[in-house]
């Protein structure tokens, strides 16, 4: 089934996922890839400029020329939704990767070494978790000033704790397993035990959480955009589009419906990926 040459390298966890994950995982991946592709090819696929004001006037309902209609400034909504995907996918990706890496490493150290480091990390996690996620992100962005870079900083400062808590808990339970003792009995260094033996066994749950966090980040980005603290107009971003269209929600609902749908569809595919990962973990590690 698997070639002998593939024995020694790579992160086994990842390989295991891709080979054993079921259809939801593949559908989710495919869906996200299609969205990313559409976003990348938007200039080729569509004749409009995302920030060019329409001469024909604003708030046109969906039509052959403008399948999603136009907004209050006469800009093509389909174009803006696709361009916005670039920013929103980026928000989700960066907003997951930085806290995931930081949280996993910190949680791993805390769970493996314990003692004072674990006590300190535990306190910090408790304090940060005590605040609602969005309130904390808003507060930090308000302090640092609006903009994407500060948004990433805020997200990273807040959501690493979730990953750290997951990984710390898993590490604590895995640390006591016999194969960890066996690894020590074979004379492996702490670094090797932590990263090659412990990490692959504890990181899966963090990946699963990362998928729902991806959705949370997009929503946080949208909320910040709504408050004017995130992406600045006229750059298209789903949250900002909804925020700016809210005055027309009764007369021209398409202005908010399509960016909203974009968030829903993206979230759906990402959740499928998360479910697929979770399924795989349960199948491979039934305990």
């Amino acid at each position, binding site marked *: 089934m698997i070639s002998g040459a593939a024995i020694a390298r790579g992160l086994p966890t990842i390989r295991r996922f891709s080979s054993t994950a079921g259809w939801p995982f593949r559908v989710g991946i495919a869906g996200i890839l299609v969205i990313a592709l559409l976003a990348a090819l938007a200039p080729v696929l569509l004749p409009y400029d995302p920030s060019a004001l329409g001469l024909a006037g604003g708030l046109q309902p969906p039509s052959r020329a403008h399948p999603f209609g136009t907004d209050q400034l006469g800009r093509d909504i389909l174009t803006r939704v696709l361009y916005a995907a670039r920013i929103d996918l980026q928000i989700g990706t960066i907003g997951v990767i930085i806290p995931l890496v930081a949280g996993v490493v910190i949680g791993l150290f805390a769970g493996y070494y314990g003692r004072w480091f674990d006590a300190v990390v535990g306190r910090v996690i408790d304090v940060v978790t005590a605040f609602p996620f969005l309130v904390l992100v808003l507060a930090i962005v308000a302090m640092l000033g609006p903009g994407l870079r500060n948004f990433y900083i805020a997200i990273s400062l807040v959501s690493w704790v979730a990953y750290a808590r997951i990984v710390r808990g898993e590490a604590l339970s895995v640390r006591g397993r016999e194969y960890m003792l*066996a690894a020590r*009995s*074979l*004379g492996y260094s702490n670094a090797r035990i932590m990263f090659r033996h412990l990490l692959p066994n504890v990181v899966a749950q963090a990946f699963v959480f990362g998928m729902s966090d991806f959705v949370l980040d997009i929503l946080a980005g949208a909320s910040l955009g709504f408050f004017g603290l995130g992406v600045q107009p006229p750059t298209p971003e789903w949250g900002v589009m909804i925020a700016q269209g809210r005055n027309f929600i009764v007369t021209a609902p398409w202005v908010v419906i399509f960016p909203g749908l974009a968030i829903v569809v993206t979230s759906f595919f990402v959740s499928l990926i998360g479910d697929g990962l979770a399924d795989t973990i349960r199948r491979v590690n039934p305990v």
Partner: protein
Amino acid sequence: MASPTPSGVSIPSSDTLRLEDLTVTFRGAGYPVVRGVSFEIAPGEAFGLVGESGSGKSLTCRAILRLLPRGASAGGRVAYGRYRLLELGDAEMQALRGSRIAMIFQDPMTALNPVLRVGDSIAQVIQSHEGVGARAARARAIEMMERVGIRDPARRAAAFPHEFSGGMRQRIHIAMALAAHPTLLLADEPTTALDVIVQAEILRLLDRLRREEGMSLLLVSHDFRVVAGLCDRVGVMYAGELVEVSTTREILRCPEHPYTIGLMNSLPEAVVGGRLRSIPGSPPEVGRLPPGCAFAGRCLLATDTCAAAPIPLRELTPQHWSRCIRTDHLADLRRGLITAGSAGS
């Protein structure tokens, strides 16, 4: 250095393991749970530690590699050749683990890392101790799998632990432990989690590999039969102490401690008259040990002297030591004449 082959071309020389007055104490407990254990394992010798759960045999075993559970610390002296293991720096100890002294554990279901392919697990041991390349390590890993009796090892090396049965996993676990050619193997209940047939196969394998490699072996088990079948000498542990040490032959022929006799009488093979004869009562709680012999409370021969003061390990013959002062009266017990029933009535 050339890897030793089954024909035994370059067998690494084994050293003497010497435990002197080993104690293991849990932090805050105030009393040791392993109390003054001393024994020696000569190069190439197989020594068995027998005792029931909680007798301290596993802790003794883990103390040698300094792999005690958190909060436990070892006292006394443990020497392997020129190394004084309890005083060794962490880095030196780490270098010794796996390369000179290796250990195998009880449960093959949990002793292998579930996310590593078994070939990688074995190759990693070789790579981390011998600085050989990945390709050479992999070749050696496959060779090792073949030696522990895994069919089609080149293909099976790419499989994960959950794709193997318990017995096969224990073979792989053994392959890992022996991959860097240690000269002393500590086996903590290596077959307890396996069924009887597989158990016999694994024991035969261990015995064969031990002889091929010229390794010393410390085998820990609650099962007298396992130890008797594999070991040259046996130590019997009770409540954290060695109560009897002798050669296997001698201890089977003529056990010199009431606990040892009870242990052997409680084997299914020893059943006379259709009933399994268990030792009445249960071991004393550590921390609430009686002032004298720890077994006195369950012993049919106990006298006031037994309960009054600690009993030292006494030399009966140069080979045979016992922590019993009433060895002259053991004959009846050995014949099974005194049992719990007849003594109580």
